[in-house]
């Protein structure tokens, strides 16, 4: 069966520090991969999605970036965090090429920028 792992579960970082959140998927090949951010009381905001290694699409311009160095690995990064980057970050995957399939989410990373 397929599983998705995100780490760390919680993170407290000072303003201006770098960020690296990692997500890996097991049990499937060539997944679509997604990074979402969820602010308190708000819906999910799509940040990045990827349909293959090295292929990243950005939905929202900001100081975050994403990379996909391996088929089942998706990394969210920042060189300098802002206070507004605080939030709940979720990684998700879906099967590639299927016209409409559920996204499967990890358990998220709670990021607090101080």
């Amino acid at each position: 069966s397929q599983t998705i792992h995100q780490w760390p579960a919680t993170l407290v970082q000072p303003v201006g520090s770098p960020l690296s959140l990692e997500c890996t998927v097991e049990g499937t090949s060539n997944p679509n991969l997604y990074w979402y951010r969820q602010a308190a009381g708000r819906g999910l905001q799509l940040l990045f999605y990827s349909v293959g290694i090295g292929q990243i699409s950005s939905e929202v311009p900001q100081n975050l970036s994403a990379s996909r160095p391996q088929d089942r690995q998706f990394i969210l990064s920042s060189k300098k965090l802002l206070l507004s980057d605080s939030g709940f970050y979720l990684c998700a995957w879906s099967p590639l090429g299927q016209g409409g399939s559920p996204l499967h989410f990890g358990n998220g990373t709670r990021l607090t920028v101080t």
Partner: protein
Amino acid sequence: GESVGLHLPTLSVQEGDNSIINCAYSNSASDYFIWYKQESGKGPQFIIDIRSNMDKRQGQRVTVLLNKTVKHLSLQIAATQPGDSAVYFCAEIYSGYALNFGKGTSLLVTP
């Protein structure tokens, strides 16, 4: 229904009652819809989905209704249990990519 501002709409039901959670979607070309359940501190969990060529789909204790005329989606939970307490939100999908997620409705089940 959909939230306004920072506060999620809340639905409070008694254990054993049926719950109905509503969602309005925005894109008439969306062809796939999903309901998710999110418990505090966890990622969203898939509950049930429906494609645009259907208007009703049933699962275990849950039913999703789709009204494309008014772009409305609802989730019905039968015999609501305390473990159903969570935030529920819908997602509309177009061409296989997540297009939009609703802000969610908080369901509170009281004993």
